[in-house]
């Protein structure tokens, strides 16, 4: 009797387990479907959608946690309890233009989450789909921004670098939030249920959700805990434990708003080498007119040839794992978004300075003509020029599309001289395994690099290549047909020059997909008014200062800076003391610190030369007028 009961219970339980597994597998197919296009945006352009809404493998945390993050983890994110802004605004995320002010719940999340967030059902860092919604960043979180003018703030401008976003500060705060033992799945779900009483998932889904959120939290917490040894304590609120008490913020977290340290991350993820000595700060750049004929190489150092590779590295540097990047919708987003930036500003409009500041008097036509002529003499050689008649950028100039050596440009060197940079091209190229001949070439190249290192007795480097070779073999087994974003090492038949390319090589430009150079690349500068603060490290607030018409400030305050359409750039209080910075621009950008130098680019005149001769200043005034139009 008992046997029979046990028997039947076992059979029924087995059948139930089979049905549950089957339902889950069926569910995975539904959860992995992207939302219907009309649900997320008004425009039908898939490139725009990919750029603004498409997942790029940067899922951060569950949607329900995002909804209650203020209530549950506010203390980890808010340094100043009196700051009235929302937690998202404090870190410079863009408010959603469709936000109504209603509490964020799953049903209205697409409208209430900040701009540049997407919702997926992918577990962060994995290729698994579950019923639990997660939020992640899109290209637009970094590459879209707003201009603050006297009357308030402009509409969102897609493709402009977000000058206010503090990605590093935010991810440091996330580390603190996750290490809080008080943060549990129950706490999150309870707070969510209070905030969104209408959203009841039912007992089965609630249990699954609790399980998955707890599992996510455990895994994330473990990796953050392990990361403490590698990356150190979160800079805030651990200032006193890391440096002398009362060390100001800009010394502890030197990137600040509008900048990231992508090459520190890339050295860490692609090479697994320490990034602590890395002072390569990158301003988040504009991504207009990325077409190959206009920008054959991108990034400030011209190290990347292909727009898709560029977009892959953006996501990879921000923490997207190769297995997530291999998901069809992620790979497609990266391709579509990259393609969209190629003609952004050409096929899709970007607001002009006059459109953003309609009250700005139009420049005198004679001044504009003089400016265009002077620009073509002084600047076009390196940047090409815009024909104001046709609106086309003319990519002609004897020094255009060249790696300009450091001694020639004179700007801060750290972005191109950071430790281990020479190893990066090969490490990045082999991070995504190809198939067939491409995979064979990747293996050969790693083996050759190892042999060369051994021959030169650089045993440490040889060890790194051996490890990367093992990583490649492992991932080749994972991506049997090759990773969908794997790319060729060069566009020509012979890639032998690529790995060996000498730093600072200028001519002729080898067709390598990735290079390590010791110089900055001369590219077109469409829409300079949206590039403030200027230079790759964002060290010069206005165009007038960049052209040496005004003194470049030694140290200034950054954050939510207002915009000056006459000087073309950010209004930034100049001070040496962080305590002088107003609350909306709390970060002191000190150009005397490593990586922050505002020197160089003294084209055509140094500041002393401008001061010596008023005719020079007049010429530059004219160029400024022209720059406001290109």
């Amino acid at each position, binding site marked *: *009797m008992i*046997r*029979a009961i*046990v*028997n039947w219970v*076992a*059979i029924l*339980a*087995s*059948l139930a*387990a*089979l049905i*549950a*597994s089957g339902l*889950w*597998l069926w569910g*995975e197919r539904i959860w992995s479907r992207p939302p219907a296009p009309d649900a997320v945006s008004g425009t039908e352009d898939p490139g725009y959608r990919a750029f603004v809404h498409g997942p790029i493998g940067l899922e951060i945390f569950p949607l329900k946690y995002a909804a209650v993050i203020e209530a549950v983890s506010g203390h980890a994110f808010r340094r100043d309890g009196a700051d009235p802004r929302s937690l998202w605004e404090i870190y410079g995320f863009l408010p959603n233009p469709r936000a109504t002010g209603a509490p964020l719940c799953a049903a209205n999340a697409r409208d209430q989450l900040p701009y540049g967030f997407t919702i997926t059902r992918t*577990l962060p*860092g*994995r*290729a*698994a*789909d*579950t019923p639990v919604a997660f939020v992640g960043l899109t290209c637009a979180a970094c590459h879209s921004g707003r201009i603050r003018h006297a009357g308030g703030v402009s509409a969102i401008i897609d493709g402009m670098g977000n000058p206010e976003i503090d990605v590093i500060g935010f991810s440091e705060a996330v580390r603190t939030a996750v290490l809080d033992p008080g943060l549990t799945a129950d706490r999150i779900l309870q707070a969510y249920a209070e905030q969104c009483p209408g959203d009841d998932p039912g007992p089965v889904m609630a249990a699954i959700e609790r399980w*998955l959120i707890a*599992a996510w939290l455990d895994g994330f917490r473990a990796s953050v805990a392990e990361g403490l040894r590698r990356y150190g304590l979160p800079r805030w609120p651990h200032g006193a434990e890391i440096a002398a008490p009362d060390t100001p913020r800009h010394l502890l977290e030197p990137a600040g708003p509008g900048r990231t340290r992508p090459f520190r991350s890339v050295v860490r993820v692609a090479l697994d080498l320490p990034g602590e000595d890395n002072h390569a700060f990158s301003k988040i750049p504009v991504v207009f007119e990325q077409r190959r004929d206009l920008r054959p190489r991108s990034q400030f150092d011209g190290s990347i040839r292909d727009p898709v590779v560029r977009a892959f590295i953006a996501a990879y540097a921000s923490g997207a*794992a190769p*297995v997530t990047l291999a998901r069809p919708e992620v790979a497609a987003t990266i391709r579509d978004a990259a393609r969209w930036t190629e003609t952004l500003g050409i096929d899709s409009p970007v607001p002009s300075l006059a459109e953003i500041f309609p009250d700005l008097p139009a420049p005198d036509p004679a001044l504009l003509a003089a400016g265009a002529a002077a620009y073509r003499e002084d600047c076009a050689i390196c940047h090409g020029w815009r024909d104001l008649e046709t609106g086309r950028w003319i990519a002609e100039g004897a020094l255009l599309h060249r790696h300009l050596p450091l001694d020639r440009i004179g700007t801060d060197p750290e972005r191109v001289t950071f430790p281990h940079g020479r190893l990066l091209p090969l490490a990045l190229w082999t991070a995504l395994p190809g*198939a*067939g001949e491409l995979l064979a070439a990747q293996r050969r190249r790693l083996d050759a690099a190892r042999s060369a290192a051994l021959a030169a007795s650089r045993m440490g480097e040889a060890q790194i290549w051996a490890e990367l070779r093992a990583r490649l073999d492992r991932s080749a*087994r*994972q991506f*049997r*047909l090759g990773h969908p974003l794997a790319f060729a090492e060069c566009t020509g038949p012979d890639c032998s020059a690529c790995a060996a390319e000498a730093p600072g090589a200028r001519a002729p430009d080898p067709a390598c997909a990735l290079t390590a150079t010791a110089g900055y690349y001369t590219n077109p500068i469409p829409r300079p008014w949206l590039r403030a603060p200027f230079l790759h490290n964002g060290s010069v607030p206005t165009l007038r200062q960049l052209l040496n018409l005004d003194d470049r400030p030694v140290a200034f305050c950054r954050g939510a800076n207002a915009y000056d359409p006459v000087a073309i750039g950010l209004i930034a209080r100049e001070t040496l003391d962080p305590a002088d910075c107003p609350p909306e621009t709390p970060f002191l950008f000190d150009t005397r610190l490593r990586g922050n130098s505002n020197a160089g680019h003294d084209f055509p005149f140094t500041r002393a030369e401008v001061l010596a001769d008023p005719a020079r200043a007049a010429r530059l005034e004219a160029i400024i007028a022209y720059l406001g139009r290109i």
Partner: protein
Amino acid sequence: MPRAPAITLPLAAFAAALAFVVAGGVMAGDVALFRAHATAWMSALMAMPAMWHFLRRAGRRPLGQSWRLWWTAGWLMIVIHMWWGLGALHQWDAASVFARQGLAIAGPTFLLELVWTVDVVLAWTRRDWADARGWAGAWHWFAWALAAACFFVSLILFRNDAASLWTGALMLAVLLSALLRRLAAMEEA
């Protein structure tokens, strides 16, 4: 007291194995890769009792219900293995499997899928399945040997990871013990 029907254990094992494959995939980094591997281990684990049973009895005593059920469970799992191994990892492009693994490895694997399928069909359609003679009996032996060889090569010779190696070692031990017992029984007779 009635004995539990032979179906209970294989069914429970199959359900547990599938749940492991599904849930483990969610927890592992890469769903497709984990599930492709795990279905292979699970197929081997479930084929094991059948192969043990077969080696001890085939040609000497009628095969039992449990052989047929475990053998079918293992086969089902290898079919699911195809779904992830061939479908997800290779986009249903069988030629790419040959290109990657070579004929010597991919050939027998695909052959096994075929031979095992026919064997399961025989087991469920022929009246004399428990005591098959002639070509059907030979087919059972062929399928058995091919499965043993394929599992041996992919689990032990390839040893992709510790789990594969342990599964392979277990299978080797089980089959060896069955062989010894068969030999001992034959000696007694």
